[in-house]
């Protein structure tokens, strides 16, 4: 039973079709990959899912409810969390407070009482950020900064975690640790949706992969199926190579 489904999502900017009839599903306990060349519409689809981009037509269902008209905040409160391709960190706060404030927000929104500070330390430990917790977040290199965004999203204990190129800027060893973290998060029951250019990472972590090209979904399936798809090879490598 998918946590998230998009139905025929279409987004046009003036005459440009950014997304054309895209339907995907994301299931709990799995990492679902979303790949495609630059400009394929991956981030636009994320923006549609999180409510930051209105659809021209089509809809989004989250936990069996139609959320197409919901604000980003309402979707966030309902259990979506995301990271941003162009980092959206809270630059005036330390690494620890960047993570902690997510807990502050959750606590201010719900009646549930929990120890924000304790959960912050758990999440920092789990994401391997304890050694830089007291630094200004602006002092981190991009790779670590992306992990802070993931940690921040984890603080909300999301049902659906959307990661927009979390591994870009990471070193090879960072990226390996990150893959383990992803599998662990999904293993705990969270539905993870991953936009990523690091194909080894995608192939290693994802159960299902959707491939976008020029706003259209050109393939969906297991890593092996997608790798074998002629349409995918054409989109990535070009016509001549397949000829």
């Amino acid at each position, binding site marked *: 039973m998918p946590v998230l489904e998009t139905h025929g999502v279409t987004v046009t900017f003036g005459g440009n079709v950014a997304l054309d009839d895209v339907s995907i599903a994301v299931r709990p306990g799995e990492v679902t990959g979303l790949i495609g060349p630059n400009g394929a519409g991956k981030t636009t689809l994320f923006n549609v899912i*999180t409510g*930051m*981009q*209105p659809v021209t037509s089509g809809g989004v269902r989250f936990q069996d409810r139609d959320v197409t008209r919901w*604000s*980003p*905040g309402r*979707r*966030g*409160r309902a259990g*979506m*969390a*995301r990271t*941003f391709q*162009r*980092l*959206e*960190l*809270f*630059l*005036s*706060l330390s690494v620890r*407070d960047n993570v*902690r*404030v*997510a807990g*502050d*927000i*959750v*606590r*201010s*929104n719900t009646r549930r009482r929990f120890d*924000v500070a304790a959960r912050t330390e758990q999440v920092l430990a789990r994401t391997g950020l304890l050694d830089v917790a007291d630094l200004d977040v*602006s*002092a981190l*290199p991009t790779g670590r900064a992306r992990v802070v965004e993931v940690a*921040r*999203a984890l*603080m*909300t204990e999301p049902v659906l975690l959307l990661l927009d190129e979390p591994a870009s800027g990471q070193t090879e060893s960072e990226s390996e640790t990150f893959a383990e973290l992803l599998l662990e998060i999904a293993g705990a029951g969270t539905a993870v949706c991953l936009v990523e250019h690091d194909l080894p990472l995608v192939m290693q972590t994802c159960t299902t992969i959707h491939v976008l090209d020029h706003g259209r979904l050109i393939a969906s399936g297991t890593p092996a199926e997608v790798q074998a798809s002629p349409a995918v090879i054409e989109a990535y490598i070009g016509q001549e190579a397949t000829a």
Partner: protein
Amino acid sequence: MDTFLTYTALGLVVGAIYAIAASGLVLTYTTSGIFNFAHGAQAMIGAFTFYQARVVWELPTWLALVVVLGVLGPGMGWLLHTLIMRRLRDTEIVTRVVVTVAVLLGLVSLSQWVWNPQEGRVPPMLFGADSTVDLLGVTLRYHQVLCVVIAAAIAVALWWLFNRTRIGVLMRAAVDDPELLKLSGHDPDRISASAWMIGSTLAVLAGVLVTPVMGGTLEANALTLLVVDAFAAALFGRLRSIPLTFVGAVVLGLGSTYLVGYAPAEWTWVGNFQRALPMVVLFVVLLLLPHERLRGTATRSRERYQTPPLPRAALWAVACVIGLVAFGGLISEARVGTLLVGLSFAVIALSVVLLTGYAGELNLAPLGFAAVATLVAYHVGSDATAADPRLSLTGLVAGVAVAAITGALVALPALRLRGLYLALATLAFSGIVSAMLLRDTTPRTLFGHTFVIFPNGNILMPPLEVGPLDLADATTFLWVLSTLFATLGLGVVALRNSSYGRRLAAMKDSPAAAAMLGQRLMVLKLGVFALSTGIAGLGGIFMSMAVVSVSAETFGFTVSLSLVMLTVVCGIGYVSGALVAGLIAGAGITSLQLVLGDIALTHPEYRDTFDIVHHLLLVATALVGIGVANGPSGFLHDVFERQRGLARVPFVRWGGAAVQVALLLAAYAGLLGPALLLFVSVVLWSLLPAVATAWAPDRARPLPLELEGITTPNTLALRQRIDRELRIETEAGHARA
């Protein structure tokens, strides 16, 4: 029918002037991303210069126009762009607003220096007042017809510029992505400079045309507020569309003349309402504007602040109270009054720190809320018939509460929009307060009580009395006010370090990420705005008590703008920034002028010199505000950075504190005056970091190589060092080897 046509024609003329002013504003905003608050002030300078050229120098009209439109307008635009605006890339909206506000204040004080505001100047109509033409039975002056013709010509010209010329398209590109424009071989600076030159010329043109149409004499403040009228018109086009801006301008113009023409005679408030109309329209349009989409900002701004931990802040709070009261004991009772005004300004500035420094929202009219609080406190909490009246605690609480509620109401329409709109809404609110409340001197009946909102345009604010505390005594007042400031300051720091404060910071740094985490931005913004205007109201009531006799000028928008500007200059992220800014705005400038005045009295031969210094002081304040473009974190930030070195050498720090106490005791013994004490203390604390470095040279841990050049300057020497350590053979390396 004839009257209808007359009002329509006059409305079109007024609308035409709004349109000319507004189109300049839209032009600079769309091309540079900077909303020019000084637009009205530029119009004002244009109007005065034209008067000077035409009437005082008796130049022919055409030559006067060439001077104003051909030289002054473009010149001012070019200077603004070259000296100021192009340094504003990568700054927060607060910084951008403050810099143009500083330009506004600078131009106003400059104009009052050159053109004595006591003299009445009636600017001439172009073609004279006697050249008239009859159109459909309505007699119009050439000047009025000309306004409409010029506006129409500008509309066509701008449409053509933006849609049909290369430079116009480039101007639109310049704001979206200057880097990309540079890559395609264009110079964004030059394009933006030409936009500023045109925009500024349009401002000046509006200034030359407006006063003869509106009637009356040239008034610097009224002309400066033309920016709000123009903004109301520009808002119709969301600050982007020139045609819609013209529609807005015409609606405003017709609205104001119909209002005067057709409102029933018993509506005594219509005259005041007409002045406030553009601001009221502004609120209505703000309410109707569509919600803005959340999008990632992802810009890295240059502003940085540190918040002290609570125990250290508490220590400072105690030191602050003791220091202020001790200093108060050294000066005469009249000067204590000045110090009190300064401290109450500091409380008002604290509201700016909370709102702008912590939450990233803008309030350009804290004194507007101070005025509301003062009026409510006065009417609720004092008995005007008593021989020696006192203000009750009920009055104080009511005043603060109403200020907070008013704040929430003012913010409501603008909260869904970007910070700039909120800033403009508050400025408009301040305009409404001065145009309607503070001019309302006729009796009104409300809830069965008949009272005058602002009797005789001046009220005497009675001092507060709560239990044993009677603020009629200056020393008690000083104790109470400094304790109040310290407590509020401590509260604000505690707030910043709390969950609420972190959420404010999150909203300020990335609204998109905060919303995605589930934060209800509106609720947070509304709450912090109400809290901040409540504090402004509290400070305002104390200010009124310290000033005693308050009038509309006490709460003028220039006072508000100076205070906000000085708070940013000092450091908007710091409580100490509020203290220093408040003291400078409320007490510092006054005291300096008093001191200079005293010297001028004893040495009459220097009077002219002191007169110049007096004006220079005001202009210099504005120049300091413009300097914010270079150090957007404020000067206290740099001071703290230097003082941080002292932490390594506690000996020097405690030594400094001991010397400070000794200085204070010496002052009490009469060995040095209060002014000298202040001066020596400032010198002492600015020298201490140097002493500390000399005592114990900085042996800080070296920065890891990969971080060098990121937070430190990226120099050639550094690059060579990196090459050396990575053993990269470079040409320079070969040359050395």
